[in-house]
């Protein structure tokens, strides 16, 4: 506990140092980035100890009334999330040094960066409603300022406002949830929450938590801020927000669910439905995008959907008396939280590297970057393989566990529960196939082929401050992918925290299966290496020729005739056209001879256009009636105040007598 508090202090010192050295950008940036590594170094050992033993530690400090005492604590769930927060913030901070090199406002950005990391830590260790909500709000505000870094651009200002409003709408649902949870007149410490809750109150709390935390996590249809905020934010901030901050929503949901006790069956089904919708629609909307960072943002929606599917399977298993299903579901979901942090962090950093080198994230304008930026290209490929869940990389391990949980559920549960679980297997398989299509598009169009526009010669690989973090994360993707048998026991204490009855036998069974997965994955890699060697030996003595790509008999094909992101995804986008509502603007040549043609496609967010814009419009119209009261005449305002006071006075007098 002490170590974590010292780490928090280190982050705050680093934040204020960065702000204090505004005039000396280099020093500010160095000091600002040093906070996270220092914090990680200070508390990593203590956190691992809590995670491996499962013994929670707590701190109580008496605090002024009326809030009782200040309570903080670290249990296995907290330390699991803390380790992810700190590790990813170290990598993104290192990257940020290079990324913000030319920015004039880097010191302010570092100030908020450290505050964001600190507030996320407090969210995770808070054991008191007030501390939790304060940290939650600080997290929203600091990330708002980070998103608004390039506030000179109109689109960035708009995106950050959407983010701010969405965050607060989420918090709006958390307040009544905590009111319901808190005992009347009792303390607001988490340990006192949720005792003897009526079933209806517990269920309302759960629904409010799903809405409030789902908004932060980016569950469909509460995800509107994600595709706006991520493209606007600097890339290392996107990586941190997408990799870690949205997981605070997952953390909140799990923490509140722990307080609510035995879940009824429909909670699991609600999560399964929301998870399936988020995963499927997230990946479909991602396919239709042609801005690299917006595409990645939609994939965060998809992956949060997969995590929630895992949690949903866990709840279903808990409430229908199949503990082994619950254990597998929770283990898969937790590992996917970790894995998504690593590979999504990597992908956003890669996108940032592309953006910084080429000054565009528009996929259709790029191409052939693998030659110019080999490190970014190769590490981005690793990220793509991981996010598609392809063995031997880390995404597969967690997705496999979630699949396994679902299949085990289908086999052991009654028909009424088995059918929805079977449907989620089909959904997860479709999501896997579509994600593969999406990342074949993202990687293939951006990094392979020929440059689509004449990119200037100045496109070169970024410096080591930006490439080293990507290499680190790519290595982590592979290492985590091959260490499945070690990871499942490592999160066993967290799963036990979630009321899933985990025992040595089930850990052993999971480990044995995962070690076979690892065996196949390792054999696969060895086979690739061996075949590459044989191919090399066969070809090294023969002379191979270089020639232009085979043009199938067409004369002088040019780089602009290559497939683009839009054309690559067009069959799928058309197939799901009724969901995606892609808008096309086509100026086709009308005569028989070729002339200039133009095609523009845009896929706006369904829930933003279908739900939120009409809703806010309606609220605006309703509130416009209140404008009658706002006319700028001071004496009438004063009259209104006096009348209100008199009314209150009369009421008070009448009440007392």
């Amino acid at each position, binding site marked *: 506990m002490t170590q974590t508090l010292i780490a928090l202090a280190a982050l705050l010192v680093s934040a204020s140092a960065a702000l204090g050295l505004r005039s000396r950008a280099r020093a500010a940036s160095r000091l600002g980035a040093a906070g996270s590594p220092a914090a990680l170094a200070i508390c990593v050992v203590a956190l691992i100890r809590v995670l491996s033993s499962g013994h929670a530690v707590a701190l109580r400090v008496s605090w002024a009334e009326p809030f009782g005492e200040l309570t903080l604590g670290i249990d296995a769930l907290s330390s699991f999330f803390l380790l992810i927060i700190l590790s990813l913030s170290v990598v993104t901070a290192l990257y940020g040094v290079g990324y913000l090199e030319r920015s004039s406002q880097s010191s302010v950005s570092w100030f908020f960066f450290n505050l964001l990391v600190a507030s996320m830590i407090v969210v995770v260790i808070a054991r008191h409603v007030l501390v939790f909500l304060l940290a939650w709000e600080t997290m929203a505000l600091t990330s708002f300022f980070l998103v608004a870094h390039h506030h000179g651009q109109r689109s960035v200002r708009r995106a950050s406002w959407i983010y701010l409003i969405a965050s607060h709408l989420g918090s709006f649902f958390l307040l009544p949830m905590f009111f319901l949870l808190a005992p009347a007149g009792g303390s607001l410490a988490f340990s006192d929450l949720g005792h003897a809750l009526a079933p209806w109150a517990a269920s309302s709390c759960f629904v409010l938590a799903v809405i409030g935390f789902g908004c932060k996590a980016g569950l469909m249809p509460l995800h509107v801020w994600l595709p706006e905020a991520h493209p606007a934010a600097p890339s290392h901030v996107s990586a941190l927000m997408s990799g870690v901050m949205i997981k605070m929503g997952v953390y909140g949901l799990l923490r509140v669910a722990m307080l609510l006790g035995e879940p009824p069956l429909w909670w699991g089904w609600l999560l399964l439905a929301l998870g399936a919708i988020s995963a499927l629609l997230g990946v479909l909307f991602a396919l239709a995008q042609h801005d690299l960072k917006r595409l990645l943002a939609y994939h965060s929606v998809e992956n949060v959907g997969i995590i929630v599917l895992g949690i949903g399977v866990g709840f279903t298993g808990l409430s229908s008396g199949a503990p082994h299903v619950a254990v597998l579901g929770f283990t898969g979901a937790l590992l996917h939280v970790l894995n998504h942090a690593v590979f999504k962090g990597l992908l956003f950093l890669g996108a940032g590297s592309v953006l910084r080198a080429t000054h565009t994230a528009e996929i259709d304008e790029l191409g052939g970057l693998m030659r110019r930026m080999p490190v970014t290209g190769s590490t981005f490929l690793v990220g793509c393989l991981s996010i598609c869940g392809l063995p031997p990389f880390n995404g597969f391990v967690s*997705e496999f566990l979630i699949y396994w949980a679902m299949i085990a559920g289908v086999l052991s549960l009654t028909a009424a529960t088995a059918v929805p679980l079977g449907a989620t297997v089909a959904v997860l398989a479709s999501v896997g196939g579509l994600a593969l299509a999406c990342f074949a598009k993202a990687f293939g169009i951006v990094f392979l082929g020929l440059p689509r526009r004449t990119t200037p010669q100045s496109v070169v690989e970024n410096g080591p401050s930006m490439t080293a973090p990507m290499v680190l994360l790519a290595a982590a993707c592979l290492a985590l992918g091959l260490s499945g048998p070690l990871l499942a026991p490592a999160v066993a204490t967290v799963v036990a925290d979630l009321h899933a009855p985990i025992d040595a036998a089930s850990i052993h069974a999971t480990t044995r299966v995962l070690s076979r997965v690892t065996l196949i994955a390792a054999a696969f890699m060895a086979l690739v290496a061996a075949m590459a060697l044989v191919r090399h030996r066969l070809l090294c003595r023969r002379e191979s020729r270089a020639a*232009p790509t085979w043009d199938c008999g067409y004369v002088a094909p040019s780089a602009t005739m290559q497939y683009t992101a839009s054309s690559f995804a067009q069959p799928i986008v058309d197939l799901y056209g009724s969901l995606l509502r892609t808008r096309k603007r086509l100026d086709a040549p009308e005569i028989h001879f070729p002339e200039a043609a133009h095609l523009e496609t845009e896929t706006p967010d369904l829930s933003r256009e279908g739900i939120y814009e009409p809703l806010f419009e309606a609220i605006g119209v309703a509130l416009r009636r209140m404008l009658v009261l706002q006319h700028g005449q001071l004496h009438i305002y004063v009259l209104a105040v006096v009348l209100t006071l008199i009314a209150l006075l009369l009421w008070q007098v009448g009440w007392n007598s």
Partner: protein
Amino acid sequence: MTTALLDFLTALALAPLLPGVIARVKALFAGRQGPPLLQAYFDLCKLLRKSGVYSTATTWIFRAGPIVACASVVAALALTPAAGRTALISFPADFVLLAYLLACGRFFTVLAALDTGSSFEGMGASREVHYAALGEPALLLGLLALARQTGTMSLPSLLGRASPLAPEAALVGAALFIVLLCENARIPFDDPNTHLELTMIHEAMVLDHGGVDLALIHYGSWLKLWLWSALLAGVLMPVALKTIVTPVPLVGVTGVLAVALGIGVVESCIARLRLLRVPHLLATALALAAVAFILGVR
């Protein structure tokens, strides 16, 4: 274990026989003599002796594509049981790993195609990922239906106990056969002998590969055909046949060859579908798998 190893090695050795069998069946239907049964082996030998021509647009991805594609199928083959026998490695939910290994190979084939910058290869790549996204849920849901019906989670046991007399297994067999035709670039999805790049799927993606790389691609795709045929044979073969114990992998090979005959007959009897119709047929496969699943759960 030794029988599984024997099955595995048999698959590696005999996979190039399948295209010969299919071609012979098609020739028989067309009244031609057809190429020799061992033509694929001759092709492999010829290709392995050649060097390559590499497009100036390509990077290491183009060279890695065939290797990963072939290696992924070999790794997946280690999970595939011959009819009624064990696989080299099996564990609960192993068919998920099998599907994802095949997906990994597909991903690299698609990337190698995009690496050339050719619009035809881009077209093939786009179609490939499109159809695979529809085929994958049908495969997993179909196997899940069998898992529920037989009460087991690993491929050898669920294929060993699946009986084609049960309606679930028959429906799953039909679904898997459709996905098999799609995944292995057969008519009615794709014509391996077409001459027009515009209509190709799999062949369009590998237009630029030659020599050793093309040999790897061909060998990988034949192995994949073997793998799928073995799965289908496992579903559709009567339990009485599956339980025959032979020291040599006779039953499994017969099953695979029977599936190849079936493919040849289908290819001879029906024409290619229009590309726009392909998703409908794959959706039919998914629907069949879903019906099988519901029947199995009931």
